[in-house]
């Protein structure tokens, strides 16, 4: 049981990263437009995030340094600030979207308009950050988020033609009515979503919050190897549900209410109940993850005292920064902007910030001053270099593709 609860950090990180509001919708959009022909991207993304999250967790466990401290140390103040600006902007967009996402999920459960839920959602996020222990926070949201497995259950109950799905997934091609640039735009969006930098910020800072040390290296690895593949599995299940039910009906996903329709069709009201709990937990977890990440990145860049393990008064600037982020998020949402649109953009922007985040992690994971004998092995380094090249290509292609496709429309 202890081992089982020990993976909560990995599960919360992955659920917040893979099935937050933006991914829920992006995955369903992709499923409803491209079937499973982009599933391979999720696979590539899962391997990549496992690789780098494990590295950042190892650096945190061995040296006690969280990722953004390392970024500033290695890149210096200028490139560090560039990364901070990009990451913080993405975080803020995502915080905004997730609070909107919690509200949208609550609207689905209650039919009360989501704008009314926004203050409630934001206040709840703040209260948890202000008062709840890190351990309790990750266990509760992680476990409740697991109910999203109902997407996989519903897929089985829908009795799809598995051969067709497998065919789409394993010999991918661009569907006839879609353009090649739209296909690659969504490929980058999915890759960016899988590897969003806030996941490593949160994971490594969480490792420091939990006081991991060298003896927790195995724990770190289990967290990564359970959490992220699970997140990837869930996102493929969501895409598959959309591909089976929505694609044939000619429905292109634009809202959260469409995402749950396949579950209702497959698993009825019980399934719907599970999926609603899961949606609220996952978006709430993602809201916590991104709000905390905003605080972590700022505090670690400027060297402020941070962490939920301290009293708020002992990490005053860290808490103030998060309060301001939440207020900004509420203000943005109050203008009536579509929360889903916000995350769709943030996912693509995150592809741009990726190289400046993962390069310093890789360098420090090879530095014996920090890592002693726990430096990277040859295989990990070779794989990581391959991923750096992929990341670089994705980040260079992101903006041109976004303009070319009109953001995928």
């Amino acid at each position: 049981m202890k081992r089982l609860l020990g993976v909560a950090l990995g599960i919360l990180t992955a659920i917040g990263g893979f099935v937050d509001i933006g991914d829920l919708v992006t995955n369903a959009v992709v499923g409803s437009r491209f079937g499973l022909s982009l599933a391979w991207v999720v696979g590539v993304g899962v391997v990549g995030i496992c690789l780098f999250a494990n590295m950042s967790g190892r650096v945190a466990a061995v040296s006690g340094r969280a990722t953004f401290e390392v970024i500033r140390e290695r890149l210096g103040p200028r490139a560090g600030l560039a990364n901070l600006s990009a990451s913080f902007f993405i975080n803020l967009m995502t915080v905004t979207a997730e609070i909107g996402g919690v509200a949208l999920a609550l609207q689905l459960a209650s039919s009360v308009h989501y704008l009314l839920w926004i203050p409630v959602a934001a206040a709840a996020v703040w209260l948890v950050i202000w008062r709840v222990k890190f351990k309790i926070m990750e266990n509760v949201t992680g476990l409740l988020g697991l109910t999203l497995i109902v997407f996989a259950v519903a897929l089985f109950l829908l009795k799809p033609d598995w051969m067709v799905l497998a065919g789409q997934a394993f010999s991918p091609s661009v569907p006839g009515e879609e353009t090649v640039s739209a296909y690659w735009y969504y490929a980058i969006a999915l890759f960016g979503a899988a590897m969003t930098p806030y996941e490593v910020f949160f994971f490594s800072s969480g490792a420091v919050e939990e006081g991991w040390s060298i003896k927790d290296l195995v724990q770190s690895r289990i967290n990564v190897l359970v959490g992220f593949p699970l997140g990837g599995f869930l996102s493929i299940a969501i895409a598959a549900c959309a591909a089976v039910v929505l694609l044939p009906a000619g429905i292109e996903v634009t809202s959260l209410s469409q995402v749950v329709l396949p579950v209702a069709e497959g698993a009825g009201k019980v399934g719907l109940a599970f999926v609603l709990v899961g949606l609220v937990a996952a978006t709430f977890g993602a809201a916590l993850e991104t709000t905390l990440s905003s605080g972590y990145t700022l505090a670690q860049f400027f060297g402020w005292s941070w962490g939920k393990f301290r009293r708020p008064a002992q990490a005053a600037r860290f808490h103030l920064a998060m309060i301001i982020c939440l207020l900004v998020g509420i203000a943005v949402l109050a203008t009536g902007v579509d929360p889903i649109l916000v995350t769709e953009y943030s996912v693509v922007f995150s592809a741009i910030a990726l190289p400046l985040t993962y390069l310093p992690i890789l360098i420090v994971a090879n530095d014996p001053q920090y890592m002693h004998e726990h430096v990277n092995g040859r295989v990990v380094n070779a794989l990581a270099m391959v991923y750096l090249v992929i990341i670089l290509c994705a980040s260079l292609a992101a903006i041109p593709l976004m303009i070319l496709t009109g953001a995928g429309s």
Partner: protein
Amino acid sequence: MTLNRKPPPPAAGRILDAQLHLMDRQVLDVDAVPVTTVDDLELTDVDPNAEIPPGSPAPVIISLLTGPALGTRIFGGRPPSRRLVRIPWTDVSDVSVVIRLGVSGEHLDAGWVQRWVRDKIIARIPGGDHDPG
């Protein structure tokens, strides 16, 4: 190439490269509470208008700088000397992956923003002064 040059005469103490070991490192106080990051270093002055007489003593680090020094290091320019926020080098107790101070951050100039935010805002919100959970 670098490697073919002869090594410098051995020094009697630990070697620290400013960019590698000091700049942008996290500074922790005696209780391991983060205080700031090293934004820059202040050295004893060298006359910028005259040649250094042979045999003059080498400059030493007087203090770690923070606050406005970060802005000027990134964007250029130079803050007036009295506006620099300093942590005296004599407060430093150890330089490793982090820089440790031998004093509490509570009384350092570098901690005033933290203290202000804490006393004026965070400690006034209910629960701000209690342990989490």
